[in-house]
């Protein structure tokens, strides 16, 4: 073997180790009683719902740890951002884990490791835009064979035998499909470093594996040109590509003319990086599409930019577009559609509606008839502010759902500012006086030292609901959804020096150095562009006052939304009041209700009676040592009925299952100094 070949071989080492026989016999005996969680969001409808009630309001506080597994050794270094939700199907729990994005199979009752599979991708994995363990994997069976499908950081679809973790040799090329190939585009600059990947879990519906694409963050891209994020369907048996949907239309396809001046040819991104939802009965797939290249400046892509920030419905068998609805025309706020569309069979004014409900960063829950794409409640186009950034084009209107009303803040005003004391309100007013404020869809501005430094936004890049999405109870027709109500994003634009980017404006603040948000080591050598000197009095203004958020509570919420009525039934602050708020000298002596937390990655689980979600921040209180709580709420009222301690924040959405007559809740925790860990909770044996 030549040195080069050896090196190539070495960079793609594959390993699978079987450690214990899968307890098929024991699971077979109890399978009828087991309740599974067979896909990322419990089902293809994106509900995150299981009708279990062994764990309920009367005993939630009694939960104890059944088993736990650290993910440190499933990669060459620990990861601190474990975002996975496992599957439990046919008596085995499967998950992605660790910085290698290994796949592990566990005994769901004991946590015993049954097998592990890993792929060493070398530079291809190391230069991937979306690294670490990702959100999860997919399971498929025809009743005889069982397969696990997942996507490596280096964007390869891997098909494993679910019984032993070994690649299925008849699938694709010895068990893999290189997703950088056969994509109706050449992934540039090369297969190793070409920017495209994904962190979400693949979806399998009726023998078709559906896969989207993700890229690097897009605040300050190097170029208006990038690879495009098409969506493809593959045959789960063979790995053969069945269809592709061009999220940026090719010439002659519908929507091409919404990219003026030929910008469809070079604009990239516009992928589906979050979870995809499928209605197998209708044979329809729901694609939540992200922002096109350059999050905050669209001057190089004039027009409405279909299918950017559009909910697209395609045929499961062909990928052919059935309907679409663009939530945001000519996107300028990074309002990627960031979570799974939720399928809901509801009753509106006495009539049954097969609906799809889409939570968003902007805090609107968009509800459509999922067969036709027609809004269930009107979404009239309403005038929005038109900005004046040179070269930019604006949509003069945006669709605004009339029902339900926004479930989280999506604009900024003085009324939103911190008001614990008049002095704090004054300090907040002073800070925001340097920014442009306004309601949802107030456009970005060119940043000026004398002000405005930017447009101050809520409900944009990190606001509202992000990738964890919502939950849905098919019995009561309620959506439960977490939202960040305080994740503030100042959006200022600065001219990009030509040596940094070919885009006219990138995100930045006047008076600060113009910088590209770049990868390690770039522009670090001799002759790199010298940044401009800072001007006095300019630059970053903290979006908090001595750690207190600039806006008033609640900082993070869970909302229950009645989909039959299109109304918010209840809304609670989710998350203990942060230490920095609770212990603030400025608030000494004041009695402040629980504020919730300023975080955007909290996922919910709904059971027969409970809504369950962990906290995204660590706190230390009289009730518990340094840690975070997994909380349970009465789903009918939002009243908290129990809480159990976690050593670190919830970073992956919780799931539940019943095996051998016991209900378990599994949640991924990590963050700060705590490396990734899956923890399974169950009731003490004597309370079964």
């Amino acid at each position, binding site marked *: 073997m030549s040195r080069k070949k050896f090196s190539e071989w070495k960079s793609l080492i594959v390993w699978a180790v079987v450690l214990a026989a899968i307890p098929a016999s024991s699971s077979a005996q109890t399978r009828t009683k087991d309740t599974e969680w067979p896909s990322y969001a419990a089902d293809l409808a994106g509900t995150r719902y299981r009708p279990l009630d062994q764990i309920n309001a009367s005993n939630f506080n009694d939960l104890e740890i059944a088993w736990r597994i650290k993910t440190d050794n499933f990669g060459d*270094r*620990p990861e601190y951002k474990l975002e996975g939700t496992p599957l439990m199907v046919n008596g085995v729990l499967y998950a992605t884990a660790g910085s290698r994005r290994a796949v592990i199979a566990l005994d769901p009752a004991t946590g015993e490791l049954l097998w592990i599979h890993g792929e060493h991708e070398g530079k291809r994995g*190391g230069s991937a835009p*979306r*690294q670490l363990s990702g959100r999860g994997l997919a399971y498929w069976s025809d009743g005889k064979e069982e397969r696990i499908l997942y996507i490596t950081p280096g964007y390869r679809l891997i098909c494993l035998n679910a019984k032993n973790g070994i690649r299925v040799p008849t699938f694709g090329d010895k068990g893999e499909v290189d997703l950088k190939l056969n994509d109706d585009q050449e992934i540039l600059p090369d297969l190793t470093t070409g920017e495209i990947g994904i962190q979400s879990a693949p979806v399998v519906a009726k023998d078709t594996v559906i896969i989207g694409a993700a890229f*690097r*963050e897009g605040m*300050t891209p190097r170029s208006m040109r990038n690879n495009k994020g098409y969506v493809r369907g593959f045959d789960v048996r063979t790995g053969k590509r069945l269809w592709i949907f061009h999220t940026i239309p090719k010439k002659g396809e519908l929507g091409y003319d919404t990219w003026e001046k030929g910008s469809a040819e070079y604009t990239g991104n516009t992928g589906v990086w979050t979870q995809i939802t499928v209605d197998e009965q209708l044979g329809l797939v729901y694609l939540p599409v992200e922002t096109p290249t350059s999050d905050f400046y669209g001057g190089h892509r004039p027009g409405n930019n279909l299918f950017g920030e559009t909910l697209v419905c395609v045929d499961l068998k062909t990928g052919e577009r059935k309907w679409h609805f663009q939530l945001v025309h000519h996107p300028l706020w990074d309002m990627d559609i*960031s979570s799974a569309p939720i399928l809901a069979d509801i009753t509106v004014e006495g009539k049954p509606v097969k609906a799809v409900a889409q939570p968003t960063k902007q805090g609107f829950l968009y509800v459509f008839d999922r067969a036709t794409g027609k809004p269930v409640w009107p979404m009239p186009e309403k005038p929005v502010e038109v900005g004046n950034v040179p070269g930019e084009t604006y949509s003069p209107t945006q669709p605004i759902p009339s029902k339900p009303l926004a479930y989280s803040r999506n604009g900024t005003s003085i009324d939103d500012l911190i008001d614990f004391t008049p002095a704090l309100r004054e300090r907040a007013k002073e800070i925001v006086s340097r920014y442009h404020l306004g309601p949802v869809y107030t456009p970005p501005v060119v940043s000026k030292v004398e002000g405005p430094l930017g447009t101050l936004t809520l409900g944009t890049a*990190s606001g509202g609901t*992000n990738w964890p999405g919502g939950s849905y109870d098919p019995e009561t027709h309620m959506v439960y959804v977490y939202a960040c109500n305080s994740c503030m*994003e*100042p959006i200022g634009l600065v001219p990009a020096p030509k040596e940094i980017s070919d885009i006219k404006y990138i995100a930045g*603040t006047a008076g600060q150095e113009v*910088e590209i*948000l*770049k990868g*390690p080591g770039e522009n670090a050598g001799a002759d790199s562009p010298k940044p401009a000197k800072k001007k006095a009095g300019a630059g*970053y203004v*903290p*979006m908090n006052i*001595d*750690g207190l*958020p600039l806006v008033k509570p609640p900082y993070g919420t869970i909302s229950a939304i009645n989909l039959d009525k299109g*109304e*918010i*039934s209840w*809304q*609670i*602050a989710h998350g203990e*009041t*942060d*230490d*920095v708020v*609770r*212990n*603030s000298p400025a*608030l000494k*002596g004041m*009695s*402040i*209700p*629980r504020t919730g*937390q*300023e*975080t955007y990655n909290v996922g919910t689980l709904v059971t027969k009676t409970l809504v369950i979600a962990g906290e*995204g*921040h*660590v706190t*230390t209180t*009289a009730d518990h*040592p*340094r840690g975070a709580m997994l909380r349970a709420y009465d789903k009918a*009222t*939002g*009243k*908290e009925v129990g809480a159990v301690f976690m050593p670190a924040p919830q970073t992956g959405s919780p799931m539940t299952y019943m095996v051998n007559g016991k209900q378990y809740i599994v949640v991924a925790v990590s*963050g*700060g*100094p705590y490396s990734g860990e899956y923890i399974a909770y169950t009731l003490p044996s004597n309370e079964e």
Partner: protein
Amino acid sequence: MAIAGLGVIGAFFGMLRAQEAPSSERSVWDGVYTEEQAKRGEALYEKQCSACHGDKLAGRESAPPLTGGAFLSNWNGLTLGDLFERIRRTMPQTSPGKLTRQQNADILAYVLSFNKFPAGKTELYRQAEMLKEIHFVSEKPAAKK
């Protein structure tokens, strides 16, 4: 819309934080880095960290924030040694461990500076063992206002 579950937590006020450092212990409020060091750290941050954590340290879908509630909460009660080791061992994500102790200390100084912890006259230590003596306390002590 009914607002439910906003439980009163006023009872927590006035309680001593379990992790509050005695006055003899040093914290991030005691001027534990220099402005010059933070400037060096800023340049390093831009090259090594900002692609994922953002120019305003606000984080994104791919990386957590290094400022604001989530950051302050997740490190409150720990030490700068913990934070330094987390950076040194795992960052930058594409090549963990490639930065020197000095570079990591400089970046940490910039993160402290960005979060408005005060600068002082001496640079941040480069040894985690020594940094463990400096407590990360998210809220400004009343006496140091």
